[in-house]
């Protein structure tokens, strides 16, 4: 019987580049920026790394295919390097590869690095690209904001909410993330905004306005993982371990079968349940200290609060407006600004979320440090579209918690 990943793998070091419009950088420059911080944090040399995973989702826009770009950028010594892609959850996928490698005993120290260089398209937003030959011939002409916007229509219909009440909840989410981002020196967007500005912004995809959408950024994030024993032997204390790592992938049920109502993420609910079980969490609302979720759009964050079983179904708007998820609330959500303001360099995002939880656990988050010392944090990294997606959930916490 599989025993899961709980406490089998420790984070030895992490690094994260500044996110944003890095007009001066190539992808490999960003990789090195994140890597140097992680190396220094881990206190190891490149020669100690035995295997590596590279996450990029829109590789045709920058580094191209394979693990080679990472091996070349970091001059890795002919070790196994694998490139992974799983929509916007690619970063978590790299982390999973490295973590499983260590947990299996196949290697002592492994590296996960996610990177995306998105600002060379000539326009704002995600690059418009082929979705596969046959898909392009029948999929609706949907964009990321347009597919996620539909959550709002379905959620509103299901819970009998009027447009204005839902928009108010969504607006608070964006205002909160901008507040948090303003305290994060690595964040892409550091300006504070008001709910009035959110509501007055131009529509991107009804009902999502400009401030309901996250930034598209350049950036990289990196994790070096090992076993708790090796970490301790290297003199590390306050060890942060992986409590759970789960992935749920749509199988076409939401897109093709009339059992899904469009108002939630089927994958998130399943992955969360499995992750809580793996981590030994029974009351997530009481047991989680803070969360980093995939807030690609404000409405995604809203419904995810319910999918993670933290807010009751239909109760997310109230919790959000009550400040439950604010930086000084019971469970801060996106204390670093989230995708919304830290930024969203696709392949790096899952690792960036883990980076934040890791810093918070060690009390190293500076001006944005959670006041009550956190014990367990959850990372929710989603890729795709509400009707067809991959959802990764990682729970990270103090060793022994």
């Amino acid at each position, binding site marked *: 019987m599989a025993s899961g990943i709980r406490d089998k793998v420790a984070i030895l070091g992490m690094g994260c580049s500044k996110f944003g419009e890095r007009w001066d950088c190539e992808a490999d420059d960003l990789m090195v920026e994140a890597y140097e911080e992680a190396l220094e944090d881990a206190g190891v040399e490149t020669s100690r790394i035995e295997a590596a995973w590279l996450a990029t989702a829109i590789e045709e826009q920058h580094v191209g295919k394979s693990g080679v770009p990472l091996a070349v950028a970091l001059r890795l010594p002919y070790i196994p390097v694998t490139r992974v892609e799983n929509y916007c959850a690619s970063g978590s996928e790299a982390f999973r590869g490295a973590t499983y490698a260590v947990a299996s005993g196949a290697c002592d120290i492994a590296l996960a690095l996610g990177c995306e260089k998105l600002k060379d*398209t*000539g*326009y704002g*937003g995600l690059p*418009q*690209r*082929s979705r596969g*030959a*046959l898909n*392009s*011939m*029948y*999929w*609706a*002409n*949907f*964009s990321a*904001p*347009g*597919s996620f*916007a*539909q*959550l709002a*229509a*379905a959620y*509103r*219909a299901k819970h009998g909410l009027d447009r204005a009440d839902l928009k108010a909840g969504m607006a608070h989410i964006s205002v909160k993330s901008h507040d948090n981002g303003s305290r994060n020196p690595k964040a892409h967007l550091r300006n504070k905004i008001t709910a009035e500005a959110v509501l007055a912004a*131009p*529509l*991107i*995809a*009804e009902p*999502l306005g400009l401030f309901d959408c996250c930034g598209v950024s350049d950036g990289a994030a990196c994790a070096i993982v090992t076993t708790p024993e090796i970490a301790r032997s290297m003199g590390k204390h306050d060890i942060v371990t992986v409590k759970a790592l789960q992935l749920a992938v749509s*199988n*076409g*049920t939401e*897109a*093709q*079968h*009339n*059992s899904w*109502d*469009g108002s939630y993420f089927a994958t998130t609910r399943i992955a969360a349940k499995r992750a809580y079980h793996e981590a030994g969490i029974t009351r997530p609302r009481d047991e989680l200290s803070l969360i980093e979720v995939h807030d690609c759009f404000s409405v995604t964050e809203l419904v995810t609060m319910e999918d993670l079983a933290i807010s009751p179904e239909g109760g997310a708007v109230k919790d959000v407006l009550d400040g439950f998820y604010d930086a000084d609330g019971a469970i801060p959500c996106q204390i670093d600004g989230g995708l919304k303001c830290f930024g969203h360099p696709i392949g790096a995002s899952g690792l960036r979320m883990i980076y934040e939880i890791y810093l918070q656990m060690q009390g190293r988050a500076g001006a944005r440090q959670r006041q009550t010392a956190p014990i367990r944090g959850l990372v929710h990294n989603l890729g795709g579209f509400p*009707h067809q997606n991959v959802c990764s959930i990682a729970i990270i916490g103090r060793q022994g918690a």
Partner: protein
Amino acid sequence: MPGIASYGGYIPRLRLSRHAIVAANSWANPALKAHAKGERAMGNWDEDAVTMAVEAARDCLGERPREGFAALVLASTTAPFDDRQNAGIVVQALRLAGAINTMDVSASQRAGTSGLIAALDAAAARGPVLFVAAEKRRAPAGGVPELQMGDGAASLILEPGDGIARLVGSRSSSVDFVDHYRGHGSEFDYGWEERWIRDEGYLKIVPPVLAALLAETGTAPGAVAHFCLPCTLPRVAQTIAKQLGIAESAVRDTLAAGCGDTGAAHAVVMLVHALEQAKSGDRILVAGFGQGCDALLFEVTGNLARKPRGITGSLAAGRSETNYARYLAFNDLVKIEKGLRAEVDKQTPLSTLYRKRDMLLALVGGRCERCGTVQFPKSKICVNPNCGARHSQIDQPFAEFAGRVMSYTADNLTYTPDPPAHYGMVQFAEGGRMMADFTDVDVGGVDVGMAMRMVFRIKEFDTQRNFPRYFWKAAPTPGHSAAAKES
């Protein structure tokens, strides 16, 4: 003699205000002000002669089984392909059986009537024929033809026997009278003086053909109850009627006020419009002019049991468009800034298109023979999480399924020729769902629960290779209010 067994029609939803056209162009040509009345039918950006033909044919077919047709004839001078049979696309989209004779008829404004005569001959000899005439017309901006033309389609089922209108007779003449022409590769027509076309063309070429037909069928001119002659010149049909002894009251409305002249389709559009209003025993005389003349005489023998949308229904379902710039953009008459997002390569792999032709062109999904679940697209393993049967699916057409909006958005980011792009999840009463593009909707006019039907449209146009990529979209079901909630 064969007869007409059914009819259907389709006029696109948008009706461009002639006042708007004239307001934009009369600075250059003040004489246009004489044409500032009424509206003309304007196809959506995702419509062409083939998609309109499919819509008219669906209206004509109703719930009639799609088997047993001996032929499909498509008449159009504006069909999208010079070499890829346009009629064949219609057959595929309608899921008519493969063993069918297909033919495109083109190259003259008379294509509609000449095609109809050929289709009637084929029906008499070989059984049921589906005949469709459709035009998406193009004219340079700022000219009179732009004001007079309209887009539309009409369809007839022709069968041996009387049907609802039996063919009494037909007659043709060929005269190389070049009132206008459109040479190979030319974008627009080149035309000659209207007075000459009227006096030397219509008034000399049409009457002898009609007179001969009436004579040889023993029809007294006064017995003609409906006289259909498409012509954009004023009072030509009335003059010819008077000359022949046909009552002026029999001269049919050319639908200039609300539709415009649909080219080679227009004689058929007018015939269908006449059939919608005719009563048993009425004689309908139809004429088509263009390098000669065709004439057909029908006698109405009954009415359709059902009421198709037809021309009357289409005309009633229009939405006025006062934005002339939108018409120019939809018809590629002005260079438009499309943005970088429009640059994505839209090449269609022809082998994939062929392999998936039932799915892509006819909207055929699957039905699991084990659990009955209906799904789109069809797959090797059933999507029902409680079934999971393998190799259990049979073809399930979705095109005629009634759907409702489950979720939707109006997207200003993604490229579309008609922003914002509306799309959403459509769930079908019979089962199954699909994330579909919406068409023929207005901003603010979509909501959860809205009733939708599927329509065959251009999904994307590959401008690099001049290839329309067709698929099905969801459009509001006529007669259902935009805000209709799920009951």
